[in-house]
């Protein structure tokens, strides 16, 4: 159910018994699956092949031949090892901050506001409202807020925390802030979806059995909302780790905050396809390993 909770998955799937008429299933599945094979599996394969290519004989930018060249990976790791660590660190921080902000918010909407459907809808609309405005423009708005002439730097200088030479934009702080801000709805919605279905009688029963508020949270509420937390974490961590907008220098980042996504983007557009492909493959593997471990540990029976 990892991602299912995001879409507010309904009741159990056994409601209609599966029938065995596999030729109909084949007709229904074939177009979509073939499409995914052509546009997702094949490009991944091509990415793997590209990552082993080397510059062609008469070297011109963008001309490469297949050569089983492991050096691309060595180069990717050697040159960008630090960037991989940074990518992982930033995404992890953003995920943790988003969780800290989203959980109480989701609890407030899903449980506290349950008696007031109108307010519940309104606050929910506020949470998803950022989705409706281009995320690039939203990120640029933060850049303006954090700019040297902006209110935040001005305030920090006024109270003496910041000297006249200090700045915010282009630091790790603004990049992690941007990532956190941009992915909060992805964290809040799945947690809300699972808390909204939480049967409060369990919590009452816990109270009747003399469980304190802390115990009731740790042993009843949190475990029951765990599917939402799992999908929220994935929906935040995965896109954050591949993001190259927040960290790019035209937005909230600088050359000191480069993330793996920026590297892939820059190399790709300089036509250094093999190394770009090697970085992509490394990023995908680096992301998939913790994701699979996390999904396995949190016991998700069904991925969809």
């Amino acid at each position, binding site marked *: 159910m990892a991602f299912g909770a995001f879409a507010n998955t*309904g009741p159990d799937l056994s409601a209609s018994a599966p029938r065995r008429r*596999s030729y109909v299933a084949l007709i229904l*599945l074939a177009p979509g699956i073939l499409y995914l094979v052509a546009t*997702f599996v094949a490009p991944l394969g091509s990415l793997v092949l590209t990552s082993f290519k080397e510059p062609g004989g008469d070297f011109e930018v963008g001309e490469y031949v297949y050569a089983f060249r492991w050096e691309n990976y060595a180069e990717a790791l050697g040159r960008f090892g630090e960037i991989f660590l940074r990518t992982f660190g930033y995404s992890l921080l953003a995920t943790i901050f988003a969780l800290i902000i989203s959980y109480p918010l989701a609890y407030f909407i899903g449980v506290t506001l349950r008696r007031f459907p109108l307010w519940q809808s309104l606050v929910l609309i*506020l949470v998803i409202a950022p989705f409706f405005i281009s995320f690039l423009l939203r990120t640029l*708005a933060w850049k303006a807020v954090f700019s040297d002439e902006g209110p935040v730097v001005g305030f920090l200088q006024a109270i003496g925390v910041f000297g006249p030479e200090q700045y915010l934009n282009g630091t790790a702080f603004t990049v992690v802030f941007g990532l956190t801000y941009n992915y909060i709805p992805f964290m809040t919605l799945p947690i809300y979806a699972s808390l909204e279905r939480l049967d409060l009688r369990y919590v009452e029963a816990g109270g009747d059995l003399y469980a304190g508020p802390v115990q009731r949270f740790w042993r009843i509420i949190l475990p029951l909302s765990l599917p939402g937390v799992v999908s929220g974490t994935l929906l935040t961590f995965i896109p954050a780790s*591949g993001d190259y907008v927040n960290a790019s220098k035209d937005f909230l980042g600088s050359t000191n905050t480069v993330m793996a996504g920026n590297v892939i983007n820059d190399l790709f557009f300089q036509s250094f396809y093999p190394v770009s492909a090697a970085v992509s493959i490394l990023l*995908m593997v680096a992301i998939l390993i913790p994701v699979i471990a996390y999904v396995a540990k949190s016991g998700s029976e069904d991925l*969809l």
Partner: protein
Amino acid sequence: MIPIVYTIVFSFNDARRTNIVWRGFTLDNWLGICDDDRVCEAFGNSIVVGVTATIAATVLGTMIAIAIVRYTFRMRTLITVLLFLPMATPEVVLGSGLGSQFVNMGVERGLWTIIVAHIMFCISFVVVTVRARVASLDPSLEEAGRDLYASPGQVFWRVTLPLLMPGILAAALLCFALSFDDFIITNFVSGNAETFPKFVYVAASRGIPPQSNVIASAVFFLAIILVVIAQLSAGARRRKLAKTG
């Protein structure tokens, strides 16, 4: 909330090329949205891409969703993994993969390659959304249709599909929203074609014209109105059900 307010306020800024410093209130940007014609062209491209990709992905995804819930077949696990992986892969990897595929094959990139990419990443989200609806569908309603001598086609078009419609519409809206706001994948597969997010990204280094704030604000208001209407009508339906039931 701050960025939303900022974007809307700055759509009224009296600025020409770069929209960073507040220069006073004006309605010119709203009245002359297309004064910077590249903004409008990019916006039009976004609509074309969004609508085409949404229709295709919704059809393909709905077919898969029905098959997954209703039928048993071989390689089920493999297909589930295949549907899960595009959602678990960072967008840069999807984008650079498809992008380098197009480069390798010598395909010229443009609007239609953007559409191809958007259909790809939408399908999984459509499957997840519609599948929930198929699963909660009461099979006895379809049985009733068959008992009344409806052909399988009639049952599908007159019973199954209308009952699935709310899920399908939700999936289509989600897909359109994802497509409309996607920049990361689009950037790799777009060639010279510009969508609205790509226009904003390219303009970010040399200054955003205020018209882009106008378009973003207009889309924002439209979306909010649609959501409020949907919420209100859902609430009204619930109250009606509570009364009659």
